[in-house]
């Protein structure tokens, strides 16, 4: 059985719990084991490296150092911010001997070492490029025929590095859901636009404007459901719909799911095991719309 070392990230223990739960259920269904990284810490996300860049690489690298110690050369990540932050630590260490030495120094202080060779993998990359669309498609039990899906990648999915997809116009998730028979909005204009991220707390006017635009775009495309690949994106788009409506006089009521939840439904995983009942905007319509 194929196994991956797995880094859930902090959000997955709080607001993004459903992402973690559905990822585990989906991978179990696919016969792939996820081994949780021992004693992992927060990746630092976008905030930390904006303030103290070098320190942020050190705390990100601590996770990679544990992965190395556990004998793995790959680390599976679900959150876009974790993905970008951890990969960025790798890149900066590879490109700058000064950063490499500083990070080694910091890790050395806690008796750790990291040689820079653990590859950070997004769960979507693993699903589409390791397991493969053919294998995934062959395991679909409930085809999502007729379901209009808006694939929302978020701003940090392929930017800035674009390791496994196009920077501006990613298609990995489009292809994944096309394999389930869903009606994917392939020209979803806002697929890599920013949701506002944690600006929802500091400059909610700006973040709400971004969410409003994203939701408008999804509605214009006729979306039955938006699928997200990041806990913050998911929370902003789903949880703040009432506030968007209040601010802009709109009436959005669009279900937003983690892509792992919808993919799990297609593979016939029990909705309860995918934590679908935990969503703010009810997904009953989506579940009901899927032919049994």
């Amino acid at each position, binding site marked *: 059985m194929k196994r991956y070392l797995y880094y859930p990230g902090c959000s997955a223990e709080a607001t993004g719990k459903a992402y973690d739960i559905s990822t585990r259920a989906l991978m179990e269904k696919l016969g792939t084991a996820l081994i949780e990284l021992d004693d992992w810490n927060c990746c630092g996300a976008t905030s930390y490296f904006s303030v103290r860049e070098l320190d942020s690489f050190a705390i990100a690298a601590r996770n990679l150092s544990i992965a190395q110690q556990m004998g793995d050369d790959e680390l599976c990540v679900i959150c876009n911010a974790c993905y970008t932050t951890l990969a960025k630590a790798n890149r900066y260490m590879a490109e700058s001997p000064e950063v490499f030495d500083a990070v080694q120094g910091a890790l050395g202080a806690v008796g750790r070492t990291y040689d820079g060779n653990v590859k950070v993998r997004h769960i979507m990359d693993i699903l589409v490029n390791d397991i493969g669309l053919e294998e995934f498609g062959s395991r679909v039990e409930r085809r999502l025929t007729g379901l209009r899906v808006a694939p929302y990648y978020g701003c940090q999915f392929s930017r800035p590095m674009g390791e496994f997809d196009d920077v501006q*116009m990613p298609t990995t998730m489009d292809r994944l859901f096309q394999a389930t028979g869903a009606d994917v909005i392939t020209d979803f*204009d*806002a697929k890599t636009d920013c949701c506002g991220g944690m600006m929802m707390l500091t400059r909610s006017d700006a973040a709400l404007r971004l969410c409003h*635009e994203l939701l408008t775009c999804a509605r214009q495309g006729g979306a039955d459901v938006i699928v997200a690949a990041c806990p913050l994106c998911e929370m902003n788009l789903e949880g703040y719909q009432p506030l968007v409506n209040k601010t802009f006089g709109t009436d959005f009521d669009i279900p937003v799911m983690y892509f792992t939840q919808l993919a799990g439904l297609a593979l016939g995983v029990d909705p309860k095991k995918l934590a679908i009942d935990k969503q703010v905007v009810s997904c009953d319509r989506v579940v009901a719309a899927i032919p049994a």
Partner: protein
Amino acid sequence: MADEKIAVYFCHCGSNIGGKVDVEKVTAWAAEQPNVVVSREYKYMCSDPGQDLIKDDIQKLGVNRVVVAACSPTMHEPTFRKAAADAGLNPFLLQMANVREHCSWVTEDKDEATEKAKRILSAQIHRLPFNQPLDPIEVPVNPAVMVVGGGIAGIEAALKLSATGKKVFLVERNPSIGGHMAMFDKTFPTLDCAACILTPKMSAAGKDPNITMLAYSEVEEVDGYVGNFKVKVRKKARYVNTDTCTGCAACQDACVVRKVPSEFDQGLGKRTAIYIPFPQAVPLRATIDPTNCLTLKGKKCKQPCTTACGPQAIDFDQQDEVLDLEVGAIIMATGFELWDPTPETRYSYGKFDNVITSLEFERISNASGPTGGHITLKNGEAPKSVAILHCVGSRDENFQEHCSRVCCMYSLKFSHLIKEHLPETEVYECYIDMRTYGKGYEEFYKRLMDEGVHMVRGRAGEVSNVALSPEEEGHLIVKVEDTLLGIVRRIPVDMVILSSGLAPAHDAKEVSQIFGFGCSANGFYLERHPKLEPVSTVTDGIFIAGCCQYPKDIPDTVAQAGAAAACALALVDNPTVKVEPTISYIDPEKCAGCHICVSVCPHAAIQYNEEKGVAEVITAACKGCGVCVAACGSNVPQQAGYLDEQIFAEIEGAMAL
């Protein structure tokens, strides 16, 4: 070799070399080396006093071998070799040690640079005792010139050369000459009509008795060398006899295949399968496009073109013709291609009908274009608002890093044309920097601001059709950060023009290889020297002009075309030219006649002598590439100036420290 007297000259090149290499130290070290009788340093060796040092030492000290440690030999080897020759020393007894490009410019650490300079110098000091005097080979020059590419650059160069009485072959890939300029409506900043200023030149080139027009033709092979190029040109079958065709276009009117996207109209207009690309085409002859002609595709057709053609010029059996031409010089004027904005997905080119490229707009605004010069949207209505996005595919490290130089000005010209045709239409120019550097350009910019065009400083982020307010409904929305206001704007417009950059022709690299020179990192043809030899290439006798070298406007292109013509003339106006004597020699006593060298020679410069049973080098054809030297199993071919013992001595010298 007891009487070798080597002189060493170390150039500071200002601080270019002196700033990194400890020149005094290396010069003192060189003085101690075997056979070195004098070692000097000088601020600028290429200056007259610098050259005089060499001459004086040759004449007064009896120096008979010279090494100049300075820049690349492609830069000043000819300068120093001439100085040596002036003082009576055979120029091939002088060697360059490249301590600038190979050392000071590319080495960070001063001590390392100094040590490296010593090794580079040592290699040449060891080599020199094995150098032999060589005499340049003088060959006759063919006075004809070939110009490749029939845009404004090629036309101008051809006309200038013809005016001196030289024969010119003007080769153009498309059915007509004229290039991109023929597609334009007006030209900035004077707003002359492009056709009005270009057509007379096209027509003059077409009628010129000195110019052989080879339109719808491509160069396939180039052989030979400066003064004596042999060029194979494929004249593609037009399926129309160009001697009898009168260009009356009756065939075009009769053709039943009427919906082929017109290349000349950027696909916005349609043409027939037999066509004349535009009314002012030169030569004004019809061409049948074999991919769309029913007869040539083997399908049924009543061939109304044949019936319509009075002079019976249509010939479905016509074949390509391959011409073998001989010329003394070649001018490359193969132009550019507009950068295709499809990969810049955020601007939605190809997704929204009314997002168009600059070249498409040129055709739309052109009186002879597909809309008859009416600026319209796809649905035929006039746009009430237009955004022009600058730097699409230019100044962008994801696509092309270079500035395409002409886009700011042509964008301003578009604004003017829109305002002229549709005074009520709002126009927005989204720019990063407004680069209006030419004569009359800044004045034109000022005039446009007075005409009421909205200037928005910021690279557009996205073109979307997602309306967030009733005013945006039904419009394209340009999202752009206005960096002067410090806000993100959403500008609803009816039409978006993408000011695409200029890209190298898609096959620029392959074409440059046919002619034996190269391309720069950005894909445009590489000039010999960016400042002092901008129209020459590394291949003697081949010159470049126009946008194939780098994006430029029409005035610069015409000026460069004139310069290229003058350079070509300076070559072919001489009866003979001296070529480097560094060619191969095959000793008939040693040659076993195995043919390997004959088969590897890329210039067909080695022939097999059946009578003697040995291979022989054709002196005039050998380019001194050294391939035969490397290929021979018995080590027989030797290249003058690059003898085995010279190369081994050089290696030993470099490794001696």
